[in-house]
């Protein structure tokens, strides 16, 4: 077995040093009835690289990759170009095969990149501080709701009708487990600021999203003001991090907590994971934040260095009184994010955002020209919803036959939302004019 260095002679010698007859001696605490004699049945024995690669490649070949043709699926995960350098960075053994930086003297590489990541996320969201990442956007959203209940000592959380339904579901589940009330506003393409009317003096936070699941961009300042007036917090959510290069960021709208998905920068689609949750808040709330934080300090010689800090908030010290049970975060995906951001710089991010927006505008123009298509999203960044005269599932199936992956049917995310004829689609810097022409032509053919 190529991964196991011990030879039979080594094993015999080691057993002799230990004074054990065989490895069986180590397993005598296992109840006799539960000890397995031979290898577990029903599973194959070990295989060489070639055989494994053959098997896995066969599985991979059954999937259609986003780069293999015109591709317009968004709704929380986005097809962007990731520079080759990013993958080189995250494949460096020193980053890939190390642990959480609990021993800072030999982990400054990881710690400095986390500090840079926190600084970048804070600047992009226009918030005071950001943590070292969460699992993904949806769990970050749930953690934000819990944090708001802790800060305000209130028990009600209000979700906008444009919040990604998976984020809403994850948040609802976590909140209700702890006995908090969750109010879900009805699905609405352009209704984020309905939060302002819904907030009351029992509310811990209102959670709005821009761009929302339908692609609508909204200035949430009105909701922020209304929330603050009632002593509640505004949690501002985004699923498309590239949008932060162009649209009003959470901090400019008065958000107390900003959470979102960072996959778009540095990370591939990966069929939904691993991704990287971004989490930022105001300075005032920092000690209530979940997750790891990296901070600057000095070493015994007075040299600048970085350490994990404020860890008394965390489960390994606070146990049942911790701010969250989170332990592992999404370190390597955060590294991919920060490496890509380092290549882009602010200027590159703005340029990339503009390209995304223009591609989506071109797509909207082309689809709008197809008779029967109605664009529903009034203001958007790089994705929007449109209505077709036919059932969306049928339209997408026919588009698929024409080689175009045309988006997500809204009914997949809103099963009882009466949105059977609505399609959510996205364009990015990867989308070409030919892709857009192919989409419009195929759609015209179908409807």
């Amino acid at each position, binding site marked *: 077995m190529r991964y196991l260095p011990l030879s039979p002679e080594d094993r015999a010698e080691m057993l002799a040093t230990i004074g054990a007859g065989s490895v069986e001696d180590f397993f005598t605490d296992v109840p006799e009835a539960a000890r397995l004699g031979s290898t577990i049945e029903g599973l194959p024995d070990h295989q060489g690289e070639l055989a494994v690669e053959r098997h896995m490649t066969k599985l991979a070949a059954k999937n259609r990759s986003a780069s293999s043709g015109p591709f317009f699926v968004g709704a929380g995960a986005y097809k962007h170009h990731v520079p080759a350098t990013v993958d080189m960075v995250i494949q460096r053994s020193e980053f890939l095969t190390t642990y959480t930086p609990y021993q800072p003297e030999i982990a400054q590489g990881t710690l400095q990149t986390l500090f840079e990541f926190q600084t970048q996320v804070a600047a992009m969201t226009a918030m005071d501080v950001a943590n070292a990442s969460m699992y993904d956007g949806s769990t970050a959203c749930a953690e934000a709701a819990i944090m708001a209940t802790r800060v305000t000592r209130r028990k009600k959380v209000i979700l906008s009708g444009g919040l990604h339904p998976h984020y809403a579901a994850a948040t609802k589940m976590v909140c209700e487990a702890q006995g908090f009330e969750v109010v879900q506003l009805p699905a609405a393409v352009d209704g984020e600021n309905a939060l302002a009317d819904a907030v009351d003096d029992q509310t811990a936070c209102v959670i709005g999203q821009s761009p929302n699941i339908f692609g609508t961009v909204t200035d949430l300042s009105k909701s922020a003001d209304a929330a603050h007036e009632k002593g509640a917090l505004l949690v501002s959510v985004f699923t498309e991090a590239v949008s932060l290069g162009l649209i009003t960021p959470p901090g400019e709208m008065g958000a107390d907590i900003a959470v979102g998905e960072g996959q778009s920068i540095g990370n591939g689609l990966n069929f939904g994971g691993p991704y990287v949750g971004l989490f930022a808040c105001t300075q005032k709330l920092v*000690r209530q934040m979940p997750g790891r934080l990296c901070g600057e300090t000095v070493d015994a010689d007075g040299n600048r260095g970085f350490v994990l800090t404020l*860890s*008394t908030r965390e489960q390994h*010290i*606070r146990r049942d*009184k911790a701010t969250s049970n989170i332990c592992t975060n999404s370190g390597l995906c955060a590294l991919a994010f920060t490496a890509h951001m380092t290549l882009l710089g602010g200027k590159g991010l703005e340029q990339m955002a503009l390209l995304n927006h223009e591609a989506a505008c071109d797509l909207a123009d082309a689809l709008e020209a197809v008779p029967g298509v109605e664009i529903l999203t009034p203001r958007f960044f790089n994705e929007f919803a449109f209505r077709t005269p036919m059932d969306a599932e049928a339209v997408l199936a026919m588009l698929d036959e024409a080689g175009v992956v045309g988006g997500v049917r809204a009914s997949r995310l809103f099963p009882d939302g009466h949105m059977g004829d609505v399609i959510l689609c996205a364009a990015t810097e990867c989308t070409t004019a030919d892709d857009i022409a192919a989409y419009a032509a195929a759609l015209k053919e179908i409807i």
Partner: protein
Amino acid sequence: MTRYTQPTTFFTKDHEWVTVHNDLATVGITHYAENQLGDIVFVELPEVGVEFSTGDDMAVVESVKAASDVYAPISGKVVEVNPALADKPETVNESPRENGWFCVLEIKDGAEIASLMDEDAYKAFCEGL
């Protein structure tokens, strides 16, 4: 029931000190406690106006490696908290009995004071630990 017209200090087994003066009680943690905790990096104080019963979680004191609850030594309402601790939590290490006080309570039931230790009793208690 004794009324303490001169400031008089008492102690709990959880290493809080409480200086009673007329209707008010100033609360902090002892030298023994801050020494055990090590470098104190943050103190979470209660809000003014909150009422506590004896033994309630009243404050949290954090070192790098641990977070410890501070219990209300007697029942009462918070009338003042130490503003210096927000920026300088190390004050608790440097001056636990003077500048490092946590808060002032308006005493609810003076009879509770009888169950606290005086300086000598506390000293003996610590030596026994």
